């Protein structure tokens, strides 16, 4: 199994490398003259040229690429073109806690909303509760997050001052309720349906029937046997969702005024702050890749079949 682990890890590194390179390529495609941007609109051509040389923009693409990689190895993501003298890394580092909080909240909502409803619906198919949750799930899947967020703000923060309108403050949790809910609803809907489908399948399978015949109470069956099967796909996707959320969900952050990585990314894109764009996009992708690796490894511990096939 160590063999598989090592190979998978190397594969992850390869993808990270590819992602990094793609981000670099991307930085080159943005239609803006970085030197001019840093110099400012009033600067003379001479000033612009000297800044270009400072930034190393007159060197060949290859040498820029290599120094980009070298800097990255030291954790240096560059300096922002737009925000006076602030490094990309420090900005991202400062914004990350908010995004992380939001991401975690989103995942929690997904679990809390999605899994129980799916289980209940599976145990009482076609009942009122099943239909209600299905309807809710369909709604959650189809409602555009930005619209939903706006509606929630209107009804729960404006009309009724239950939650703060936007921004962040103390206690942070209170400020995060609505945005993380908006974030998690879509996923919750998806998981609810998926848990329901998987559980229906498992509940009908011969080995569950056998356990029932043994006389085991339904509840124990649920927790000891059924849940494992139903939750395995959920666990996988939760991991991927977390990775996705960490990359910064710009829309939610912008509606709710949360100064997270997504907001950072969006601002950098509208101001064409190339190092910042590259940095945020890179960080987002790396989160996804690492989470995917973690999920893969976790799978080994959850599913014995997988463990055996990897131990070979």
């Amino acid at each position, binding site marked *: 199994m160590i*063999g598989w682990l090592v190979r998978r890890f190397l594969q992850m590194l390869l993808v990270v490398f590819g992602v990094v390179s793609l981000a670099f390529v991307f930085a080159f495609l943005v239609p803006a003259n970085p030197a001019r941007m840093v110099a400012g609109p009033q600067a003379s051509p001479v000033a612009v040229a000297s800044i270009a040389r400072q930034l190393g923009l007159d060197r060949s693409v290859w040498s820029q690429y290599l120094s980009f990689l070298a800097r990255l190895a030291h954790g240096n993501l560059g300096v922002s073109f737009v925000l006076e003298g602030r490094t990309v890394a420090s900005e991202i580092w400062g914004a990350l806690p908010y995004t992380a909080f939001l991401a975690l909240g989103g995942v929690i909502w997904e679990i809390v909303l999605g899994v129980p409803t799916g289980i209940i619906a599976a145990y009482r198919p076609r009942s009122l509760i099943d239909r209600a949750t299905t309807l809710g799930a369909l709604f959650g899947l189809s409602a555009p997050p930005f619209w939903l967020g706006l509606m929630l703000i209107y009804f729960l923060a404006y009309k009724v001052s239950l939650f703060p309108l936007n921004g962040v403050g103390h206690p942070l949790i209170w400020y995060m309720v609505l945005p993380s809910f908006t974030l998690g609803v879509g996923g919750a809907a998806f998981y609810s349906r998926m848990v329901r489908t998987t559980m229906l399948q498992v509940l009908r399978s011969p080995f569950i029937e056998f356990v029932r015949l043994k006389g085991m109470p339904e509840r124990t069956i649920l927790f000891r046997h059924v849940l494992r099967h139903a939750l395995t796909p959920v666990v996988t996707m939760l991991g991927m969702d977390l990775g996705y959320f960490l990359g910064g969900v710009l829309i939610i952050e912008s509606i709710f005024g949360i100064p997270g990585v997504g907001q950072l990314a969006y601002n950098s894109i509208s101001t064409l702050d190339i190092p910042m764009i590259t940095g945020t996009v890179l960080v987002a992708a790396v989160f996804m890749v690492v989470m995917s690796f973690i999920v893969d490894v976790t799978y080994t511990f959850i599913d014995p079949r997988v463990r055996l096939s990897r131990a070979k």
Partner: protein
Amino acid sequence: MSKTATSLLEVRDLAVHFRVRKGLAASRAVKAVDGVSFDLMAGHTLGIAGESGSGKSTVARTLVRIVRPTGGTIAFDGAEVANLRGQPLKRYRRRMQMIYQDPYDSLDPRMSVLEVIGEALTVRGLPKNQHTGEVERLLGRVNLPVSVATRFPGQLSGGQRQRVSIARALAVNPEIIICDEAVAALDVSIRAQILNLLKDIQRDTGVGYLFISHDLSTLRFMAHRVAIMYVGRVVEYGTSEEVLTNPLHPYTKALIAAVPSVTSRGRLRLKLRGEPPDPGDPPSGCPFHPRCPEAIDECRRVRPDLVAVPGGQSVACHVVFRSRPSVQAPGWPA
């Protein structure tokens, strides 16, 4: 037994080794086929018998070049075909066809019978507008009514599907048809019909068969010569008369003893213990020695060659030759 001049297919020392990755960097070779030799005469049937893991299906797939051989030679009509590519490979493919075990998966469920056979006809070079007539003729050859042509495989029974497969194979006018457990998945009464049909076709067209089966009684009926395979090697080879009525190799004896017959009462006298070994990690010397009731010390150390017994079949067994004072020099039996 002398080798006649009309040996259509001559296989010598065929080897098919697969590399399987193990651990971080190491890999091991799975020797699915490890030195197999046999002849097939035109218009005759060679039966290949063995259990799972014996390599018989791999031999079949190698002969039609779905799998590449890693060693040995395959001579078809005098020409070497093991390494053909491109156009010559295409030409060779038409002369050797195959019928498969699973009647449900060997026909594309989305194509009608007409299209399935038509595909083969197109390969043969027949233009589309002449397909219908030829398909009707072929369907008649396999005793299927013409109305079947517009049906889809999902509407046909297993036996009917195998007939369609046979028709498809015949469509390119092959000289050899490999039947890879072609009747194993069919009900017993249908099996009889298909075997009869195959024999009729052989009588009428002179096509040769390489009949692969684990069922010795089927081979008794179908095959002129039989090769018994164990873990990628041939352990006994000769006419079906010789091998099946006078088996020499302990494995062959055990296989035959395992066939229940109508007259045998009480328990079967099975002398075979254990299970066939993993082809990736076969025992040393003769691969059968752990299970062989007659094994001697040499069997563990030295791998036996396939040697002819005077006036009879060829066997790969030390014990057989220990008990016979006159033994031919090792090498391919004349």
